[in-house]
């Protein structure tokens, strides 16, 4: 049977998740048993780097196996040209059925320039559940439509004593959960078909805004003292390049926007807590997807990838979010791959790998010639 030869691919890619936000990457505070178990079952890459510290160039790069200067997506707001071939298109042409939930973000996604939805090239996705992010800014945001169906409205609540952190929707109404349910539906409905499949689970978290579910943040509020402060040496920005100095006073060059220079220790710890809380929900949902693979008998021959498109400075070097700052926190990402049928698990690889390596690797795994 076709499926016995070609593996399925469950490609979980979170947004803006730094490498050290998982227990299996040394973080003792987060609760990530499911991703840790995935690492035990597969291969964990200790030194994986993204091609860019922002979304579009990074995503265009790992979806094509080409560097940003070649795909011509060098910064957010630039559209992937029609002549670029995505790995999903190549897989689809080779018989795969490809699906997605969440964002794609290889074309402009600001509502001012993309008011209806993200423009797509011939990307190979047969099923496309688009929700760029949770905030309702497009009528086509499928996550927001799902909330409506459940009689819910998207809302955030203020967290007392914080200008930076808010409570997002509860876990059951969270975008991470929605992305996961779409994946589960796809995995279940494909189990009876011969065709191999690929599903991209492109969760928006732990990308800012810092708005975890309340119950998940609460766990950290009791142990705030244990949360480490950012890696910052007082005054270090002063003799660093100008954009680092500017972003110290406001991320994205916007004065006062998550400005490290205006924060106290409590703010820093609460922001980390919020970030970790978002990761904890991601982990739970990863557990659900893996359980579905198990339940439907598809775990053996499914390649599971867990990764992120780039990191988050989270106050390191006196800066929040990201920018033209190529520090480890920004460019080093988690990468875990498991494929029980073919790859020996419980291994940690310390060699340098890059996200640009993924596309050719997946083609090889699927027995498809490398595209040049």
């Amino acid at each position: 049977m076709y499926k016995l030869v070609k593996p399925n691919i469950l490609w979980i890619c979170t947004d803006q998740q730094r490498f050290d936000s998982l227990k299996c990457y040394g973080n003792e505070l987060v609760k990530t048993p499911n991703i840790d178990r995935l690492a035990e079952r597969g291969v964990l890459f200790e030194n994986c780097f993204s091609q860019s510290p922002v979304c579009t160039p990074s995503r265009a790069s790992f979806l094509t196996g080409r560097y940003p200067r070649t795909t011509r997506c060098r910064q957010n707001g630039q559209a992937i040209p029609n002549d670029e071939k995505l790995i999903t298109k190549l897989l689809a042409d080779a018989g795969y059925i490809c699906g997605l939930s969440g964002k794609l973000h290889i074309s402009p996604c600001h509502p001012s320039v993309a008011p209806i939805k993200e423009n797509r090239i011939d990307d190979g996705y047969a099923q496309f559940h688009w929700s760029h992010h949770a905030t309702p800014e497009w009528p086509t945001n499928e996550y927001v439509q799902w909330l409506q169906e459940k009689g819910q409205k998207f809302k955030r609540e203020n967290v007392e004593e914080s200008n930076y952190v808010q409570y997002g929707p509860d876990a059951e109404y969270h975008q991470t959960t929605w992305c996961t349910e779409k994946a589960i539906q796809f995995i279940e409905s494909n189990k009876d078909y011969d065709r191999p499949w690929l599903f991209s689970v492109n969760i928006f978290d732990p990308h800012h805004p810092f708005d975890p579910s309340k119950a998940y943040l609460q766990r950290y509020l009791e142990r705030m003292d244990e949360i480490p402060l950012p890696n910052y040496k007082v005054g270090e920005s002063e003799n660093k390049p100008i954009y680092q100095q500017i972003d110290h006073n406001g991320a994205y060059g916007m004065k006062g926007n998550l400005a490290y220079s205006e924060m106290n220790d409590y703010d820093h710890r609460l922001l980390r807590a919020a970030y970790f809380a978002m990761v904890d929900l991601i982990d739970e949902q990863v557990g659900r997807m893996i359980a579905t693979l198990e339940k439907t008998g598809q775990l053996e021959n499914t390649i599971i990838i867990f990764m992120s498109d780039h990191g988050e400075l989270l106050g390191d070097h006196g800066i929040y979010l990201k920018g033209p700052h190529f520090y480890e926190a920004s460019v080093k990402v988690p990468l875990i791959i498991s494929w029980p049928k073919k790859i020996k698990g419980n291994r940690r690889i310390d060699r340098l790998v890059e996200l640009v390596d993924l596309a050719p690797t997946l083609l090889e795994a699927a027995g498809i010639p490398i595209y040049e």
Partner: protein
Amino acid sequence: MEMKGGAGEYINAEDFNPNIDSVNYSIRTKDYKYIFRFSDKEELYDIQNDPYENVNLADIEEQLEALQFMRELLLIEMKKTNPVLEVAIKNKLSQLVQKEHL
């Protein structure tokens, strides 16, 4: 509208205009990481003693020798890989060196 400058648009090395274009390069050894920025501060980190890169040594007088070494190393690599830009970077660096000696 395509932004002029800073958007990373593709140009040939031969067309590099030192008045409006910029380019950044980095090179590292076991001990140091050096970042050259055509239109901003250089960075030099002692990655043995400062692995998290909190202290930029490029401005520190006692580190001038290490800085010069890393600059030379970059130029040697550039000569092999992009001789046109090597000339532009060499010119820029010699301006910086002149300033250091004032």
